[in-house]
C-alpha cells in the first residue's frame, strides 16, 4: 500500500514537473559559415534566397558567354549591368543589387576581356574626378585622358515577377518566381540576348500559425 501511494505521489510529481514555466534554456549556437548555394536548415522562406541568386546568376553568366553575338565579337562590346532597368514586380522584397552586382562581377571575371563593362552606377564619381583633372584641381593621372566617358553597346534589363498561392486551411504558401534577364542593343533597341530563371517554393506552416 505504501509503495502504491509512493508511486502515485511520484507520478503526481512528474506530472507537476511537466508544467514548469516555459524557459528557453538552449545553449545557443556558435557562428558557423553556411554554403550560400544551399538552403538553410534553420531559416527558410518562399522568397528569393542566396542559393537562388547564386544559381540564377551562374546560369546567366554561362548563357551570355555562350552567345556569339555578345561574347564572340572581334571587338569586345561594352555592357552596362546594373539594377536601373531591372524591376522587382514580385511579392518578394529584395535588394536587386544582390543579383545585378553578382552577375556583373562574376561575368567580368569569367569573360576575361571578351566583354567590357561600363560602370554607369559610378558615373557621378567619374564625373567629379574628370572635372577635378580638367579644372586643374588635380593632375591628369598617369594612364590617359579621353574626350568622353565610354558609351555602351548593351544594357541589362529585366524583371522579377511572382505568383502566389495560399491555402489558409492547410497553412500552405507557394510562390512561383520568374526572373527575366535581357541585354538591349542601345543603338538599335533590339534584344540581343534573353535569359529566364524560374523556381517555385512551397512550405506549410505549423497548425499553430494557420
Amino acid at each position, binding site marked *: 500500500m505504501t509503495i502504491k501511494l509512493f508511486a502515485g505521489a511520484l507520478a503526481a510529481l512528474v506530472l507537476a514537473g511537466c*508544467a514548469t514555466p516555459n524557459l528557453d534554456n538552449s545553449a545557443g549556437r556558435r557562428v558557423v559559415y553556411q554554403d550560400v548555394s544551399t538552403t538553410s536548415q534553420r531559416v527558410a522562406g518562399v522568397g528569393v534566397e542566396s542559393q537562388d541568386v547564386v544559381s540564377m546568376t551562374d546560369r546567366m553568366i554561362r548563357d551570355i558567354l555562350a552567345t556569339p553575338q555578345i561574347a564572340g565579337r572581334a571587338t569586345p562590346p561594352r555592357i552596362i549591368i546594373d539594377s536601373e532597368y531591372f524591376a522587382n514586380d514580385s511579392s518578394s522584397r529584395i535588394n536587386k543589387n544582390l543579383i545585378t552586382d553578382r552577375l556583373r562581377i562574376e561575368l567580368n571575371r569569367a569573360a576575361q576581356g571578351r566583354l567590357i563593362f561600363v560602370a554607369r552606377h559610378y558615373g557621378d564619381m567619374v564625373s567629379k574626378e574628370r572635372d577635378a583633372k580638367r579644372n586643374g584641381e588635380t593632375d591628369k593621372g598617369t594612364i590617359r585622358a579621353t574626350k568622353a566617358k565610354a558609351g555602351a553597346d548593351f544594357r541589362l534589363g529585366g524583371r522579377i515577377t511572382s505568383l502566389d498561392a495560399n491555402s489558409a486551411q492547410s497553412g500552405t504558401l507557394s510562390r512561383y518566381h520568374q526572373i527575366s534577364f535581357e541585354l538591349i542593343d542601345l543603338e538599335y533597341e533590339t534584344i540581343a540576348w534573353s535569359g529566364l530563371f524560374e523556381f517555385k517554393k512551397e512550405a506549410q506552416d505549423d497548425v499553430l500559425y494557420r
Partner: protein
Amino acid sequence: MTSCIAKRFAAPALLALAVAAPAHADFAAETAKLRSAPAKDATLYTLQAGVAALAENRTAESSELFDTALSSIEGMFANTEGAAKARSLWYEEGAKDYKGEPYERAMAFWYRGLLYLAGGDYENARASFRGGILQDAFAEEQQYRSDFASLMLLEGWSNQLNGDKGQAEDAYKEVAKLRPGFKAPGKDANMLVIAELGGSPRKVGDGIGNHEIVYRKAKRMPERTLKLEIDGKPVALAQAEDIFFQASTRGGRPVDRLIEGKVAFQNVAGGIGEVAGALASEGSVWAAASGGGGGRALGALAAVGAISSLVAVNVKPRADVRYWANLPETVHVAALPHKGLPSAVNVALFDEAGQPVAVDNVQVHKWIDKRGNVLVWIKTRN
C-alpha cells in the same frame, strides 16, 4: 525629412504642428522590453519597437526592426520546439514563438511598405503591401479574396508612383469592390497622407481556462475621425481600414480545435478524479460502518482520483492572447497633389458622436523622396 509632435489639442480649434517638439521616449522603452523578452516573444516586441522607432522618425532603426520581424513572420515554422510545446497538453498556446494573427502579420508588411515609400523604393513597397495582402488571404492562386483594402490601395499607390499605370488601376478596382464610393487617387497626386487613429485591438481570454480569444477595442481611445489642414488647406481623408474589424472577423483558427481538445481532456480527467475521489471517500465510510475490508482497493481508487485531478490541473488550455499593442484602430487615407514638403499640418480629432477628443503626443512625420513624392504619417497613440 521632418517630424513634429502635437501637444494637447485645443479642440475644436486646430493646432498648428509645424514646430518640432521633443520625441517620445517610447522607442527606448520598447527596446528595453525587447532586450528582456523571452525568445518566444521577440517578434512581438520587435514589431512594437519598430512602430515606436517610426513614431520617433528613426526610419533606419524601424526598417531594420521590421525586416527582422518579417523574416520571422515569413519563415515557415515547421517542427520547432516552441510549436511542439504549444501543441502539448502541458503548455499553453502562448509557448509558441509569436508570429501574430493575420491582421498583425499584415500590419507588419504595412509598416515596412510605408518605410519603403518614405525612402522612395516603390518596388519593395509594392512587394511589402502584396505580402500583407497575402497574409490576409483565404484563397488560392491570386484570388486573394482578402478584405484588407488599405493594403490594396497602397499597392495601387506604389504602382502609380512607379509608373505602372495598368497595375495601379487594377489595384484601385479591387479597392472599389471592397469600399463602395472609393475614389482612386488623381493622376497628378504625389502626396499620400496616412492617419492612424485610436489604439490596438486587445485579445482577451474567455471561456473555461481562457481557452478562447475574444477581441475588445482599446480603452479610453475614442478618436474615430479627424479634420486635417495642410498648409492652411483642408484635406478630406477617407477611412481606409478598421483594424479592429480585421482582427475580430478572422474567424475560427485550426489551433482552436487543438485547444478545445485540451479542454475536453481536462474536463474528462477532472471528472474521473472527482468521481474516483468521491467513490473512495464514500466507500471508506461504508466499509467502516459495515466493518468490512477493501481498504487496498479503495486506496487505489483514491490514488487514481488524485492522479486524474493532478493531470486535469496541469493541462494548459489557455489561448495565446499576446497582441501587438501599438497598432491603431482605424486608418484614414488621402492622396493629393502637393509641391514639396508641407510646412504646417494641423490635426483635430473627434469621437464617434463628433465630439472633440484631446490627445497628447500625436505624431506627425513627413518625408519627401528624390522624385518629389511626399508621405505624411499621423499617429494618435503610441
